[in-house]
C-alpha cells in the first residue's frame, strides 16, 4: 500500500481471520457432529470438539446407510453423484465445443437462429420450468435412468459462449495455414482447435463438475429409484425423516462426504477454477 500504517495492516489481518472463521466455522461443527454418537448430539449446545465415533459413523453410512432414510449405502450415492457430475461436465463440454465450432467456422442458413436458441437456455433455469421438463423427460421414458439425470441438463449457453469467444481470438491465418496444409474441418478441429482449447476445457470442467455434483432439484424429481439416489437427494431423504429430529451424526457425516469432492477440486485446481469462473462470466 501507498503509506506505512501498521495498524491498518493489523486490522486487515484481523478482518480476514474473522472471515476465515465465519467460512470455516459451520464446517468445523459439521465435522465435529459427524464424529459423535447420536446421543451426544442432544445436549445444548452440542460438543465443540471431535468425538470418538468417526470410523463408526462414516463406516455406517458409507456401507449400509442410515436406516431411517431407506438405508442406501452412501458409497453408492457418491458413485451416482460422480457419474452424474462427470456425465454433465463431459456432456456439456462436448456438445458445446462442437456447436461453437460450427457457429464460428461455418456459414450456413439458420446459424443465427441456432445461436439465439442456445442463448435462450440462459434464461430458462430448470427451476422455473420444472413441471413441463419433467413431463417431457417422462414421455421420453428417461425417468429413473442415468440418461434422465444427465441429458436434460447438458445444454449449455455459457460453455458455448466461452468456446465461441475463445475461437474468435484464434487468428484466421491459422485456419488458412491448416487448409493449405491439407487439413479439412475435422482434422483442423482435432489437430489444432482441440489442443489449443485444453486449458479452457479444463477450467470449464472444474466449474461444471461442481455444478453437476451439486444438482439437487432435478435428481429429486426425475429419479425415485433408490439405486439412483445421489448424495444430494440422499441428504434430502435424511433431513425429511418424518416426525423426528434428524440423526445429526449421520446427516453431518454425509454432508462432509458431499462437500469433500468439490472442495478438493476447487482447492487442488484453484488456478483453473478461478479462470473458469471468470471466463464463463464474460
Amino acid at each position, binding site marked *: 500500500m501507498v503509506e506505512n500504517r501498521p495498524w491498518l495492516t493489523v486490522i486487515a489481518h484481523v478482518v480476514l481471520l474473522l472471515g476465515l472463521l465465519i467460512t470455516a466455522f459451520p464446517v468445523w461443527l459439521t465435522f465435529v457432529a459427524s464424529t459423535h454418537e447420536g446421543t451426544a448430539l442432544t445436549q445444548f449446545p452440542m460438543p465443540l470438539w471431535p468425538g470418538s465415533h468417526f470410523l463408526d459413523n462414516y463406516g455406517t453410512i458409507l456401507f449400509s446407510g442410515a436406516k431411517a432414510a431407506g438405508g442406501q449405502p452412501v458409497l453408492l450415492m457418491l458413485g451416482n453423484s460422480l457419474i452424474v457430475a462427470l456425465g454433465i461436465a463431459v456432456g456439456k463440454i462436448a456438445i458445446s465445443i462442437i456447436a461453437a465450432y460450427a457457429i464460428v467456422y461455418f456459414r450456413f442458413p439458420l446459424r443465427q437462429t441456432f445461436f439465439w436458441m442456445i442463448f435462450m437456455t440462459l434464461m430458462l433455469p430448470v427451476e422455473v420450468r420444472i413441471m413441463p421438463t419433467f413431463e417431457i423427460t417422462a414421455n421420453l421414458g428417461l425417468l429413473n435412468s442415468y440418461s434422465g439425470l444427465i441429458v436434460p441438463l447438458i445444454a449449455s449457453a455459457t460453455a458455448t459462449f466461452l468456446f465461441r469467444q475463445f475461437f474468435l481470438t484464434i*487468428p484466421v*491465418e*491459422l485456419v*488458412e*495455414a*491448416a*487448409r*493449405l*496444409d*491439407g*487439413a479439412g474441418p475435422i*482434422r483442423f478441429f482435432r*489437430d*489444432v482447435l482441440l*489442443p*489449443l482449447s*485444453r486449458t479452457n476445457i479444463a477450467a470449464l470442467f472444474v466449474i461444471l463438475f461442481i455444478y453437476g455434483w451439486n444438482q439437487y432439484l432435478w435428481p429429486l424429481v426425475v429419479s425415485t429409484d433408490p439405486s439412483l439416489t445421489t448424495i444430494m437427494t440422499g441428504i434430502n431423504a435424511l433431513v425429511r425423516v418424518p416426525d423426528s429430529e434428524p440423526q445429526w451424526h449421520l446427516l453431518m457425516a454425509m454432508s462432509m462426504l458431499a462437500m469433500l469432492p468439490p472442495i478438493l477440486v476447487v482447492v487442488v485446481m484453484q488456478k483453473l477454477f478461478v479462470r473458469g469462473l471468470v471466463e464463463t462470466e464474460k
Partner: protein
Amino acid sequence: MATVDFIGVEKTYPNGHKAIHGINLNITDGEFVVLVGPSGCGKSTLLRMLAGLETVTGGEIRIDGKVVNRLEPADRDIAMVFQNYALYPHMSVRENMAYGLRNRKTPVDVIEKRVAEAAKVLGLEGMLDRKPKQLSGGQRQRVAMGRAIVREPKAFLFDEPLSNLDAKLRVQMRVEIRRLQRELNTTAIYVTHDQVEAMTMADRLVVMRDGVAQQIGRPLDVYAKPRTTYVAAFIGSPGMNLLEGVISADGSAVVLGKNGAMGRSIALPVARPGETGRPVVLGIRPEHLLINPQQGDTVEVRSVLTEPLGADTIKYTLLPGCGQSLTVRLPGTHPSGDTDVLAVGFDPAHLHLFDEATGLRLED
C-alpha cells in the same frame, strides 16, 4: 516449380465491392514476382485467390496451365508464408513443419529427411523441439519458411512476411529469402507494401492500385519508365517529384505551374510541337536534380528541411511562387542551412512527362 497465369482475374465481394479489376499476369517458372501497393490495393486479395482462400469471381487462374479456380487450397500444391507466421502454437517446430506432409500421407522417413534438410538450410537445427513461443520473431519467420520449403510446392506465396520484424532483421531476411528462392528455383509470388522490398527482391514487380495493375515490369524498367504518375511517386525513395505545367508555345519545354503560372520553363529533350498548352505533369527523381549545374536552365528553390542520411542528403525545398515542393537528393553530406536558396538544374536525360488528366506516361 511451375508457371502461374492470371487471365482477366476479377474479384467482386457479395456486398458488390469490386476488389480486383481484371488482372492479367503470366509468371514463368522460377520467377520471383512481387505484388506491391498500399494497403487496400488488392494485392493480398489476389494472392489469397491464388492460394484458394478467396473465391475467383471472374477470369481464370492457372498453375502449370491447369485451371485451379475451383480447387481446394490443399490441392493446389502451393505453400504460403503469412504475415503473422500462423504457426501452430501447440506444436513443436518439427511438428509445424511436418504437419502438411503428414496430412498428405508422406512416408515418415521422407518427412524426417525433408524437415532435417530445411532445418539445416534455415539454421534451425537446434530448435526443432521448441514451441513457437520459445522462438524470436526472426526464428518464427524461418519456421514459417521451413513449413513452406518441406512441402516442395509448385510455388511459394508470401503475404507481407517481413512486416512483423524490426528493420535490421527485415533487411537480413530479405536477402535470405531471395537466396533460398534462387537455390530452390521455385516460383514465388510475394506481397508487400514496402517499395524497397519490392525493388530489391523482385525479378518482376506488379504495382497495384485499387485492384488494377498499374504497371508490370522489371524493377529497373519500372524505375526508369514509370507508366503512370502513381507508379512514379510510389517507386523510389523518396518518390519522384511531380510538377504541374504546360507545354510551351514552341513545344520545346514545359512551363511550370498551373497553366504555366510560374513562368519558369524546363527544356524537354525532345520537342513536342503541336501540343502547345497541353497540361502535363513533369517528373524528375530527387537523385536526378543537379545543384549549380555548369549548363542548362536552373530554378531557384528554398530549402525548408534537410535530412542527412550519411551517404547522401535529402533536402526538401519549395518552388517559389507556386508552393509546389521539390525533393532533392544530394550525394555526400551537406550542412543544413548553408544555403537557404539552391539553384537546381533539371537533367533533360532524366525528365518524365505525364498527361495531367490521365496520369499516363507520354512517350517521346
